């Protein structure tokens, strides 16, 4: 049954963000012939709309005041798009935007939101949302008693459409109004070079490393695989202990990565951690605990103390690279 979908898009450097394009791909298949709207707010929004494959209509405003996300300003603009498009389903990324807009929009529309979903389906016009819960130990599928159904969606839950047409029409949303929130300062904490979300290989260190200095060896593994290919991640436990920067945290409260190869060193594989990496194509563990949870997700494993295994692995990787 056809459904009208509205995607709350986000801009990244003036272009539609990767997650926005993913949501549009999901929306396109869910809509079953209904309309797919996308909202874009901030400098570059009008020109970014053209790249939104899967959308039938774009709702934009280029006001650069929107570039820094303030929930109350965004909600006022989004309300206009909701009114114009009468959506059955609203999709938002599980980003800082989605975490705030999802609940607040649901309340204003007298409906509900399911947060951090990994799949959304249209069962004869009824929307079902599936999401991990209990730290990833369980999955729950939800139905909605109210409309529209709102869901925030985890990164990489849908594959971007490579071809197709962009929005046939564009409507203008109002510019930014007043906000109760004043932004005093921002501090970028991006890592240099390859970002963990984009890297084909992620080498991750966990609490089992026992000390911050051991991350030097994790970085050496990544370097031996190739700095253009491998990035370094850390479990929340390692980040909370101050061993590695929060920008590199993988897991439920960190980043979601889906590399071809995820090499987990001294990571026990707690469900909360696996929530951020279980979509990886191949997971490899190095752990001295034969009973570690990481083995439930791994394709290959080495049971042993990382202090012995990692230096050997670095040497073998360097040898292989030399061939």
């Amino acid at each position: 049954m056809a459904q009208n979908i509205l995607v709350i898009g986000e801009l990244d450097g003036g272009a539609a963000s990767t997650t926005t394009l993913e949501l549009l791909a999901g929306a396109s298949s869910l809509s079953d012939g209904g309309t797919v709207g996308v909202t874009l707010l901030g400098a570059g929004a009008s020109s970014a709309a053209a790249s939104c494959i899967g959308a039938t209509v774009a709702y934009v405003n280029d006001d650069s005041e929107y570039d820094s996300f303030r929930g109350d300003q965004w909600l006022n603009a989004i309300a206009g798009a909701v009114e114009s498009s009468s959506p059955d389903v609203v999709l938002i990324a599980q980003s800082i935007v989605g975490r705030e807009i999802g609940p607040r929009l649901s309340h204003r529309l007298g409906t509900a939101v399911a947060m951090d979903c990994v799949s959304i389906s249209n069962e004869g016009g009824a929307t079902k949302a599936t999401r991990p819960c209990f730290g990833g130990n369980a999955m729950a599928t939800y139905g909605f008693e109210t409309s529209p159904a709102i869901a925030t969606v985890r990164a990489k839950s849908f594959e971007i459409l490579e071809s197709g047409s962009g929005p046939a029409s564009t409507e203008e949303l109002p510019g930014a109004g007043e906000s109760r929130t004043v932004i005093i300062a921002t501090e970028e904490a991006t890592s240099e070079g390859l970002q963990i979300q984009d890297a084909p290989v992620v080498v991750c260190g966990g609490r089992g490393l026992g000390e911050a200095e051991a991350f030097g060896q994790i970085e050496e593994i990544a370097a031996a695989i190739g700095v253009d290919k491998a990035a370094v991640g850390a479990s929340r436990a390692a980040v909370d202990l101050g061993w590695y920067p929060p920008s590199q945290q993988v897991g439920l409260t960190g980043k979601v990565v889906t590399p071809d190869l995820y090499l987990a060193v001294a990571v026990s594989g707690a469900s909360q951690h696996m929530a951020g990496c279980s979509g990886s194509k191949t997971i490899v563990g190095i752990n001295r605990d034969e009973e570690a949870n990481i083995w439930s997700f791994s394709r290959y494993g080495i049971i042993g103390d990382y202090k012995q295994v990692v230096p050997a692995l670095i040497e073998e990787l360097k040898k292989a690279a030399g061939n």
Partner: protein
Amino acid sequence: MHLVVCAKQIPDPDTPPSAFKIDEATNSVVPAPGISPILSQFDGIAAEAALRIKESQGDDSKVTVISMGADSARAAIKQVLAMGADEGVLLNDEAFEGGDSYTTAKVLAAAINHLGDVDAVFCGRQAADWDMGQVGLLLSEELNWASAIIAKGVEYGDGNISVQRVLTDGFETVSTQLPAVVTVSNEFGEPRYPKLPQIMAAAKKTVTQLGASDLGLDPSDVGASGSRLKVERLYIPETDSNVEFMEGDTPQEQAAALVQKLQADKLI
């Protein structure tokens, strides 16, 4: 100042996956034998944030801890009282059971209005059981208050609260007027650990119990009957467990075997 901390009692998230069981007939988690429920860790951190503000403001400030739940949730309340909160409120009523985030926020908002003089509410960024992360924001909508979420730092001065928020790639400091709801993240740091005298003192602190009628709530608007989101299925996902362990007498041999496998699979 009057600060409120919302505290939830949850099954211990460190329950080993082998002991984690679900009753698929009722879509609920079966309590693991011998593992006590705990205060959701993010709520403990939220309590720490509230207590630090109280301490910076001197004697006329007060922290009230509120929990909606069964009688067992008194343990979560007592823990926050032992950390230094002044009073507790247990929201316990059959009518509250089986609710969703929306009905939870509705009950909490009614309790905060009942207290009357609250300046700020602190919640964990999400409860570590359902991991939704929306009650704090729904609460701010119910109360029509400002909000700031996922805080790694919180400061108060001149009627404004300034919050350092965690973004995907960095941090942002925002300032907002009170009253406001703040949700606190693990980046804030560890909560204090109460010592025995504080635990003893907490036992003597008042915990008020309130139900739907005390809060002027219609039972049909809360709990399962007021819910907008229904769990239709709760299940344990199947994991791929065909792990192949690298053989070898030495770490060197095991590492060499792994590198061969990864090369054969064109992963490196």
